[in-house]
């Protein structure tokens, strides 16, 4: 019997519009503190499931970073460690945007367009369209345009994703500094120096528990050793 090339029934229609999966690899140089943290974690037996939200010291590090850099006050209970920022993007969309409603972004090549397609939501860069329920922004977006869009988000009760995994300005700005958006903003990040280790995070908002539960249903938790390695990276930076 030979290996099959085609499934006997049609695939889900949602797949057709998605782009092909990247098949590229990236090189890496592992810092000594990261290698050491990973080895120590394995020696200590941290090779099993972690707590559902992720290991507490890493979540606390996210809290401290957001507090120190952006003046945002959240608790570690509002942070979930994800399999890279891509998981945070999808989890937030899937839980907060209904099929048929729209996601607004500042640029057409936004990373949010494909996951929006997957959940059956519309994607637009025109803030005047009807049916928008979520605004996706990154630090790379133009500050003037960003501020105007956030005013609309506050006025219309939209959710906001602030994706810090996309590099841009290093200013202290954060959408959750706006009182009307503090509980409506989900912050996403990623340990970009360790891309192959797949560690990201999502933080804040009144939907934090709901997002955490859905992440758990998808992947249970994020790779344990990767989480400890990310803490090792923190050690090297300090």
């Amino acid at each position: 019997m030979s290996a099959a090339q085609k499934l006997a029934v049609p695939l889900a229609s949602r797949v057709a519009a998605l782009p092909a999966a990247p098949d590229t690899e990236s090189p890496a140089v592992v810092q000594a503190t990261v290698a050491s943290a990973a080895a120590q974690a394995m020696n200590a037996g941290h090779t099993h499931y972690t707590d559902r939200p992720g290991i507490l010291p890493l979540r606390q590090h996210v809290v401290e970073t957001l507090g120190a850099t952006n003046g945002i006050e959240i608790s570690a209970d509002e942070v979930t460690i994800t399999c890279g920022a891509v998981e945070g993007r999808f989890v937030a969309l899937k839980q907060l945007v209904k099929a048929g409603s729209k996601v607004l972004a500042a640029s057409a090549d936004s990373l949010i367009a494909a996951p929006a397609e997957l959940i059956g939501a519309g994607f637009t860069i025109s803030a005047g369209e009807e049916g928008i329920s979520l605004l996706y922004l990154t630090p790379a977006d133009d500050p003037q345009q960003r501020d105007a869009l956030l005013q609309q988000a506050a006025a219309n009760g939209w959710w906001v994703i602030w994706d810090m995994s996309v590099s841009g300005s290093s200013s202290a700005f954060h959408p959750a500094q706006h009182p009307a958006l503090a509980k409506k903003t989900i912050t996403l990040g990623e340990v970009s120096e360790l891309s192959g280790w797949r560690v990201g995070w999502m933080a804040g908002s009144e939907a934090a528990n709901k997002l955490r539960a859905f992440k758990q249903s998808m992947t249970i938790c994020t790779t344990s050793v990767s989480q400890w390695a990310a803490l090792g990276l923190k050690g090297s930076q300090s």
Partner: protein
Amino acid sequence: MTVPNSSVPEEVRAVASDGTRLRYALMELSAQYKDAIALGRGDPDLATPAHIVEAINRAIRDNQTGLSPVIGMNVLRDAIAQKLREENGVPAERENVIVTTGGQEGLFLIMQALLNPGDEVLVPDPRYTSYDEAIQSAGGKIVLIPTDHEDAFNLRPEAIEEAITPATKAVLIISPGNPTSGIVTEDRLRAIAEIAIKRNLIVISDEIYEKFLYDGWKHFSIGSLPGMAERTITLNGFSKSYAMTGFRVGYVAAPANFIEAMAKVKAVTTGPAATISQWGGLAALQGPQEPVQEFHRIYTERRALMIDGLTRMGLNYSDPRGAFFLWTNSSSTGIHATELAYLLLKEAQVLIFPGNAFGEKWGGYLRISILQSTDLLREALTRMEPIISRYRAT
């Protein structure tokens, strides 16, 4: 059996009808008890084999930790395909394999790539309720297939045939199964394959517990049968077999166009599995298999100990032909499994999941895992006995 008025805390009672939330609520509650013995979660307590840890450390030392292709490292996909051909008789090449971020993600991706809203999936009852979440997340509908204690929770082909409608797209098989530890025997799998071919259905075969069968039972992969290659999606992983749940690495084998579709979904939902975990998976497949044999010996010993203990308490259980669980009939205690599980936690500090965490009609069962040392299992049995006796006597 409904949850009666009781001392069960509101945070548990409120989620009693949602299997996944109920399990997590009990785990969070158990964290309050310093000496709790966890017989709940299916997370092997045994150490990940040393050669797997060493392979990962070597990959890290060699800087082999960069981002992999979303579909997985080719060297691992080749090794998985070889394993499937040689161990399972499943025809597979590299293009038939995707590496996933654990078996649970594999299930999620399968449903996203397979189901359109309204498509029905036949699922054995009782079941691990994460199947529900994956199916519902894709807009699919779960149709439960009854299984029985008297039949050791084997799947009956005629029950499948009776449940098929024009909307049925797939049937899910979990063998060995969670929570029952039952298996779908080869004769039944052959009959189910005939139905799948005749009715043009897809079979999703979850084989995550394939390494752990007992009493001479043998694992059989339905994807190895003639005519099934184009309609079988095989789900497996390294978490249970090699005690590496925290690495989050599994795989799915299926026709190539379906694997490509899963990769498209994976690219926008989680990205590739962690590269270190993939090196670990490769070492698991290509390294010595003695650790798995040792795990099997340990689980066999624990299983016998738990069977003895439950029998002494007067509880009966379904024949555990595989996996790590004792699916135990607790109806003779006269109290609902949620309440009994809470009492066992509160008074005995033993965490056990109630049967209704695996389907609402199973409030007369407990799922007891054997994933603790024999000393702790003995201690758990000693603590449980007075509580079980108290209720069985009244």
